[in-house]
C-alpha cells in the first residue's frame, strides 16, 4: 500500500515534543564524570605583544587543577594554529594578541565558580601596539595584523598567498566581464554611492560549548558544532592522528546561524583534555561569544552606468570585508559573495573587486547569508537611488534590468531555476504596488520600499548519507547534517520516507557522530536540503533497490506485496540482518578563472529572496514603526511548507535586528562597549512589524530532491535596503550606514532641512 505523500507535508518537527518539554538534548546540558571546567583569560587590549603571564596566584588557589598557556599547548601540539582557510589562529595566544577578548590562558577546575575566580587572578603584561580597525584603511595600513599569510592549502585560490608578507589582504577576488570603463565613458548617466554595514553577532541562545574526553588512543569531542566532519579533520591534522582516532558528535543546537561553524572551541578543549587527562568542558558566556566570531563589517563602493532606456549597462563594485584578526571563513565569504556583488541584474559590463582584510577586531565569519545581506544592502539601496534619479518606478526599473532564465550572470554562469522575475512580480502584487499609497498625516509619514537579492550556493561540497533498514522494517537515516532549528531532521525523514513509502514520523534520524555518520561538508549556506537531501534520497533509493534484490533472491515476483520484516525472516530464518543504503552527492563545479573571475558553473543552485516593507517614520523623533514586512522567495518546491515559512520569517526578523537595532560598538582602541543583551539588543516580540507575511513562488529546482533547494538565508536578503528605501520614500532622506537608528534618521532629516545637529 502506498503511504500518503511525505514531501510537501507540513509535518511538525520530529523532536517537537522533546523541545516543548525541555528534554531535547543539547551539548549545553552535558556533564561527564571527572569533568573539569575551563575558563578563559582574555586579552584586554586589541593588539600587543605578551611580555609575561603570571599564573602563580591562580595555580595556588584551592581547587584549581591547572592553568594552561600556549607553552603547555605546544608540548602536545607543536604548531597549534587552526582555521578553514588560513592556519592563522592559535589555540591560545602565542607571543601576541590581535583582538580584544583573544584567549590567552585557560584555568581548569572541577568547580566552574573556582575556575572563573582563579581566571581573574592570572595577570598578563602586554606591550601595546597600534591597532588597525577599519577595513578600508587596513588595505594600505603599515600596521600589520599578521607577519606572514598562512593559507590552509585546502582552497586552490589561496595557495599562492603562502608566506606572503607585509599585507593585511587575505584574499582579493576579481571579476571582469566586458569593458566597464568604455561603458562608463559612453553612458548617458553614471551613479556612484558607498554603503557600510556594521559588525554584528549571531548570539545563538545556546552559547558556544564544547567538551572533550581523551584516552591514549582516541579523543571524543562533544560539541555544539555545525560542522562535525570538519572538526574531525582539523583536530586530526593538529594532533597528527588519523581521522579514525577522533570522534566528533553533536546534539540539537540551540541556534547556530554560522557562529558554530568550522572550528571554534574544539581545538582548545582537545588540548586541555589531553593535558589534564580529564574530560574538559568550555561553555562560553553570552559576552564571550562576541569575542569569538562576528559578521563582517563591510564597505561597498558601487558605480553604475544607465542608458536612455533605463537599462544598466555597466557596474563596478569594490567591496572591503572586515575579517578581524583571524580569517575563519572570511576569504570564502569574500569570493562566493563576490560572484553576485552586482545584483540580480543583466549587466553586460561588470567589474568586481572583493577584498578580505585582517584587522584587530574579533574574527568575522559566516552569518546567515555568507556576505550576501551586506551586498544586497548596497546594491538595492543603489538601485533605488538610481530609479529615483531617473524618476522611474522602482519595480519597473528592476523589471527592465533583472536577470531572466537562460541569461548569463556576471560570472558567465547561465541562470537556471532562479525565479527572479516571478519573485519580483509576486512581491509587487502582494504589496498592491500599482495602487495609491496612504502617505500619513502630520509629523508621522508613511513610506514603502522593496529590495531583491540572490545568492549562489557554496560549491563544490560533498554530502554522504546512510539509510539503514532493520530486520523489523524500521528505518534510520545516518547523516552529518546538524539540526540547529532549521528542521533538517524532519526534512531528511520526509525525503527517506517518500522514497521508502513510510510515514516520515517513523523514520529515525541519527545525529551527527563521526564514528557513525559519514562525511558531510557542514551545515551552512542553505546547502543541506539540496546536498544532503540528494544524498539521503539516493541512499534511500539504494536501500529500496537492495530490498528489491533481496525479494528477487527469495524468488518473489517483482512488486510482490510482502512485508519487509518478512523478507528478513525468510532470508535469515529469524528477525536478523540489516540493509544499508548509501550514496554520496557532489555537484559539478568549475572554479572561477583567477584573473577574470569567470566560470560557466559557479553554483549548483540559486537562492532568490525579496522583501517589501511598509512603515511609518515620526519625522520629529526619527522613530520607525514597521507596519508590514513581506518576504517572497524561490525555494524550489518546499518539502515542509510550514517549516519553510518559519524559516523565511525567522530570517527576515533576524535581519530586521541587524537593520534597526544591532551593532557591536567599538571605541578607538578596539574595545567592545556592548557585549551583552543589556546593551546589544536583539529583536523581541515588541520589535515585530504589525504584519509579517512570507510566501514562496511556485517553482522547482530540477536538480534538487523532489524539486527542493535551500531556504535558510533567502529571507534575509532584502530586509535592510527595503527598509532604507521605505524610509527614503517616507521622509526623503537616504541612510547609507547600518543600523538605521532613530538618531541616524533624525540627524538625516535635520541635515536635509539644512539644520544639522552637532556631532557627539
Amino acid at each position, binding site marked *: 500500500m502506498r503511504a500518503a505523500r511525505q514531501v510537501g507535508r507540513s509535518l511538525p518537527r520530529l*523532536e517537537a515534543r522533546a523541545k516543548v518539554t525541555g528534554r531535547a538534548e543539547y551539548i549545553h546540558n552535558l556533564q561527564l564524570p571527572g569533568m573539569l571546567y575551563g575558563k578563559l583569560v582574555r586579552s584586554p587590549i586589541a593588539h600587543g605583544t605578551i611580555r609575561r603571564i603570571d599564573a602563580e596566584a591562580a595555580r595556588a588557589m584551592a581547587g584549581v587543577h591547572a592553568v594552561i598557556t600556549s607553552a603547555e599547548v605546544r608540548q602536545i601540539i607543536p604548531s597549534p594554529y587552526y582555521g578553514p582557510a588560513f592556519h592563522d589562529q592559535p589555540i591560545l595566544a602565542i607571543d601576541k594578541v590581535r583582538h580584544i577578548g583573544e584567549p590567552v590562558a585557560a584555568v581548569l577546575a572541577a568547580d566552574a565558580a573556582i575556575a572563573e575566580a582563579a581566571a581573574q587572578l592570572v595577570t598578563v603584561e602586554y606591550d601595546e601596539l597600534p591597532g588597525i580597525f577599519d577595513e578600508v584603511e587596513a588595505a594600505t595600513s603599515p600596521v600589520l595584523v599578521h607577519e606572514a599569510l598562512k593559507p590552509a592549502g585546502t582552497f586552490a585560490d589561496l595557495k599562492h598567498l603562502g608566506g606572503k608578507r607585509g599585507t593585511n589582504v587575505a584574499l582579493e577576488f576579481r571579476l571582469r566581464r566586458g569593458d566597464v570603463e568604455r561603458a562608463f565613458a559612453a553612458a548617458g548617466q553614471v551613479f556612484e554611492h558607498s554603503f557600510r554595514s556594521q559588525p554584528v553577532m549571531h548570539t545563538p541562545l545556546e552559547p558556544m560549548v564544547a567538551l572533550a574526553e581523551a584516552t591514549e588512543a582516541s579523543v571524543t569531542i562533544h560539541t555544539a558544532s555545525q560542522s562535525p566532519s570538519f572538526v574531525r579533520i582539523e583536530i586530526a591534522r593538529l594532533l597528527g592522528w588519523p581521522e579514525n582516532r577522533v570522534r566528533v558528535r553533536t546534539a540539537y543546537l*540551540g541556534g547556530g546561524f554560522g557562529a558554530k561553524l568550522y572550528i571554534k572551541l574544539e581545538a582548545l578543549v582537545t588540548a586541555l583534555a589531553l593535558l589534564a587527562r580529564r574530560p574538559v568542558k568550555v561553555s562560553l558566556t553570552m559576552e564571550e561569544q562576541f569575542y569569538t566570531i562576528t559578521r563582517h563589517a563591510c564597505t561597498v563602493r558601487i558605480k553604475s552606468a544607465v542608458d536612455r532606456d533605463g537599462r544598466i549597462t555597466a557596474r563596478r563594485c569594490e567591496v572591503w570585508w572586515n575579517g578581524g584578526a583571524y580569517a575563519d571563513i572570511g576569504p570564502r565569504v569574500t569570493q562566493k559573495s563576490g560572484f553576485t556583488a552586482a545584483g540580480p541584474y543583466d549587466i553586460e559590463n561588470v567589474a568586481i573587486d572583493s577584498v578580505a582584510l585582517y584587522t584587530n577586531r574579533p574574527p568575522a565569519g559566516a552569518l546567515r547569508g555568507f556576505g550576501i545581506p551586506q551586498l544586497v544592502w548596497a546594491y538595492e539601496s543603489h538601485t533605488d537611488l538610481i530609479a529615483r534619479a531617473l524618476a522611474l518606478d522602482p519595480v519597473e526599473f528592476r523589471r527592465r534590468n533583472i536577470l531572466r532564465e537562460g541569461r548569463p550572470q556576471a560570472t558567465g554562469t547561465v541562470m537556471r531555476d532562479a525565479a527572479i522575475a516571478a519573485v519580483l512580480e509576486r512581491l509587487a502584487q502582494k504589496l498592491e504596488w500599482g495602487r495609491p499609497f496612504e502617505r500619513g498625516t502630520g509629523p508621522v509619514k508613511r513610506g514603502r520600499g522593496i529590495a531583491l537579492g540572490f545568492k549562489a550556493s557554496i560549491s563544490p561540497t560533498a554530502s554522504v548519507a546512510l539509510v539503514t533498514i532493520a530486520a523489523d522494517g524500521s528505518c534510520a537515516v545516518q547523516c552529518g547534517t546538524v539540526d540547529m532549528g*532549521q528542521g533538517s531532521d524532519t526534512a531528511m525523514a520526509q525525503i527517506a520516507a517518500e522514497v521508502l513509502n513510510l510515514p516520515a514520523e517513523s523514520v529515525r534520524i541519527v545525529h551527527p557522530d563521526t564514528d557513525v555518520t559519514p562525511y558531510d561538508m557542514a551545515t551552512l549556506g542553505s546547502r543541506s536540503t539540496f546536498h544532503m537531501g540528494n544524498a539521503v534520497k539516493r541512499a534511500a533509493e539504494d536501500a529500496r533497490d537492495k530490498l528489491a534484490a533481496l525479494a528477487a533472491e527469495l524468488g518473489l515476483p517483482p512488486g510482490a506485496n510482502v512485508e519487509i520484516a518478512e523478507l528478513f525472516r525468510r532470508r535469515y530464518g529469524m528477525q536478523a540482518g540489516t540493509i544499508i543504503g548509501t550514496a554520496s552527492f557532489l555537484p559539478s563545479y568549475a572554479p572561477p578563472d583567477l584573473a577574470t573571475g569567470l566560470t560557466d558553473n559557479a553554483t549548483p543552485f540559486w537562492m532568490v529572496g525579496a522583501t517589501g516593507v511598509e512603515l511609518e517614520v515620526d519625522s520629529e523623533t526619527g522613530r520607525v514603526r514597521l507596519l508590514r514586512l513581506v518576504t517572497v522567495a524561490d525555494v524550489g518546491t518546499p518539502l515542509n511548507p510550514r517549516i519553510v515559512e518559519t524559516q523565511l520569517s*525567522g530570517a527576515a526578523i533576524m535581519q530586521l535586528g541587524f537593520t534597526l537595532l544591532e551593532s557591536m560598538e567599538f571605541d578607538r582602541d578596539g574595545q567592545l562597549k556592548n557585549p551583552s543583551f543589556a546593551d546589544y539588543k536583539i529583536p523581541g516580540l515588541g520589535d515585530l512589524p504589525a504584519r509579517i507575511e512570507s510566501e514562496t513562488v511556485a517553482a522547482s529546482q530540477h536538480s534538487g530532491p523532489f524539486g527542493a533547494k535551500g531556504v535558510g538565508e533567502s529571507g534575509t536578503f532584502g530586509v535592510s535596503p527595503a527598509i532604507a528605501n521605505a524610509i527614503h520614500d517616507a521622509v526623503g532622506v537616504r541612510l547609507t550606514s547600518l543600523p538605521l537608528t532613530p538618531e541616524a534618521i533624525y540627524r538625516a532629516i535635520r541635515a536635509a532641512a539644512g539644520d544639522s545637529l552637532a556631532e557627539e
Partner: protein
Amino acid sequence: MSAAPRTIRFTLNGRTVAAEVAPQESLVTMLRDRFALYGARESCGQGLCGCCTVLVDGRAVSSCLALAALVDGRAVTTIEHLDADGTLDPVQQAFIEAGAFQCGFCTPGFVLMTRQLLEQHPDPGDDDIRHYLAGNLCRCGAYPEIVQAVKLAAAKRRGAAG
C-alpha cells in the same frame, strides 16, 4: 567559594527535596548540577532573555539571577513538571501545533511565561501577547508562530474550562 555551603529544603516539581548549595550558586545552576533538570537554561546570564524561566511559588522567575539559597522553604516548578502525568499542557500542545519554535532553546521559557499570561489574561489580544512576552527572546525569530500558539492555547484552555 570560601563561604560555607548551606542546606536548603524546598518543594521541587511537587516533591520535597533538600540540597547543599553554595552562597553564590544560582537557581539555574543548582537545578542543572544537583537535580539534572535541563529545561531551564542559562543563556544571556542577565535575566534578559527568559531561557532560564522557572516558577517560584507560582511566579515566573529568571533562575540565572535568583540565588538557589533563596528558594529555601518555597515551591519551585520547572518545565519538566508540566507533563508529569504523561499529558502535554495545552500550551505545549499549542506550541507544537503552531510550529512555534525552531531550535527550541528558548521554548520552555516561552511555555512557562505563556501559562502565566493566560492565567492573567484568558483571552489575550496581539498587543497583550507582545507586551507580556517581550522579556522572552527567540533568536530564530519564531515570533509570528508564538503569537499564534498563545492564541491557540487560550482557545484550548477556554474549551477545556467550558
